[in-house]
């Protein structure tokens, strides 16, 4: 198990090298926050609550959903690259689990990306709409759910990446999942603001645990929300892990048959 944590550490160190991409990512984060703060302020002019959210909560909500989204690793390009250039043969024959190693690598990457994005989000959300009440109280629990959300995202990437064993272009699958998280997972607006017929279903889908539940717990903490978010995340993490294992098992056979 130690070797996986080593992989995680190295991945984290790796990230520091990519400064320009890092700056660009954070710059666009600030821009999105600014645009939405302007948008929400206009929408909220004259009302204090929409679907139970204040303007402050609405913007901070976006901060947290984006935190998970922007912390995404480059797991997909990595696996696709390995399949395309044949280095798959090398990485698959190493003495550890291929999917697990990729998972930890990606999580390491994500965790390093997380910290500055969290800080930037805190700074600019405060600047644009003011501080979030109860931020520090909710933080430890929110962080747990954020990490779960990141794990879920990573598992999605892993599963899609494993599809590369069959299909050359897997990006379209990724885009679809990402957009499902955007819409059904409530990336831009809380699911509470959805029409009633949709919000019920959306809350239970896996996408909500990547975006909605962690963010909701942070801006409107309650034990109920936390445990719902945790339980749901755990279920879906388990399910997706099983899918990943299955895909890998099938894929391994295919790779051996085809010669890698």
């Amino acid at each position, binding site marked *: 198990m130690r070797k996986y944590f080593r992989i995680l550490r190295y991945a984290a160190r790796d990230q520091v090298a990519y400064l320009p991409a890092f700056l660009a990512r954070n710059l*666009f984060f600030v821009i999105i926050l600014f645009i939405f703060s302007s948008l929400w302020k206009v929408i909220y002019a004259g009302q204090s609550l929409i679907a139970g959210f204040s303007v402050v909560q609405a913007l901070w909500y976006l901060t947290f959903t984006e935190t998970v989204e922007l912390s995404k690793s480059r797991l997909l390009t990595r696996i696709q690259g390995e399949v395309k250039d044949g280095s798959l043969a090398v990485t698959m024959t190493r003495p550890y689990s291929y999917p697990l190693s990729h998972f930890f690598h990606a999580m390491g990457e994500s965790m390093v990306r997380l910290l500055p994005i969290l800080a930037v989000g805190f700074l600019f959300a405060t600047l644009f709409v003011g501080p979030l009440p109860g931020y520090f109280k909710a933080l430890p629990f929110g962080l747990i759910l954020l990490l779960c959300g990141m794990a879920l995202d990573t598992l999605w990437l892993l599963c899609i990446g494993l599809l590369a064993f069959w299909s050359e272009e897997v990006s379209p699958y990724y885009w679809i999942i990402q957009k499902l998280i955007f819409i059904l997972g409530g990336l831009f607006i809380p699911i509470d603001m959805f029409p009633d017929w949709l919000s019920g279903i959306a809350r239970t889908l896996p996408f909500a645990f990547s975006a909605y539940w962690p963010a909701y717990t942070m801006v409107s903490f309650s034990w109920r929300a936390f445990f719902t978010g945790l339980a749901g995340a755990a279920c879906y993490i388990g399910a997706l892990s099983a899918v990943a294992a299955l895909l890998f098992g099938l894929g391994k056979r295919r790779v051996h048959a085809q010669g890698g």
Partner: protein
Amino acid sequence: MRRADEGMGCRRGRGSGLRLFRRQVGFNLSAGMEYRASFITQVLGMMINNSAFIFFWLILYGRLGTTIKGYAFDDVMFLWSLSAAGFGMAAVFLGNAPSLSKSIYTGELDVYLLQPKPVLPSFLASRMSISGWGDLAYGAVLFAFTQRITPGSIALFLAFSILMAAVLTALRVLYHSLTFFFGNAEDFAGTASEIVLSFMLYPGSIFEGPVNLLLHSLIPAALIAYIPAELFRAFDGGRMAVLVAADLLIVLAAWGLFTLGLRRYESGNRMGTRL
């Protein structure tokens, strides 16, 4: 002393410029067909992405039941269709703009200098982004579905798309021309262009104060998206004229900076000169 036009084949006049352009478009298109798979993937991605945002606006407007500072759902859709069409047009007809920095610091620009045609237009038109056709088509279709179709509205949409394509390209030229003076500005230019594109897709009326000023100048999303959206709803000839003038100014500024930069290029005094 031999005569200037001897030994050259018969020289045609300026009119052949248009034929050249048409031919270039045609060839770029056929070259692009080679990349059919990649084209389909890119267009698919763009459509999936845009659809997600359309859903977002649908849900938001559904919840609000009212306009957002004068912008109704249809107005936001106009912004999206115009942006797609303008972006697509720029990518298709003047698709080589993003490569300007690279051509400067690798010296590839020399090839255009040695041709008997003006450098900038020749350079810009020499590449076509095939996926741009997807954006163009998407913009047109979205427009058809969400706006009222009349000869007037179509003409206006076309005009605004052309203006946007021109200004987007001019901005790229402007940003990339900084490479002439300060070394590789490729990343900066890419980021700056992305910023403009980001702002273009949101109702412009939500921005006030200094930011609004910015959006009318350095990040001219207002000049290519917001004001056209307002004019489309309520046309005003005077305002239109001012808009066209402002856009023209940006195009001229870009051309001017490029010319200055080219002069610098010809002096050979570059940052990190390669001999």
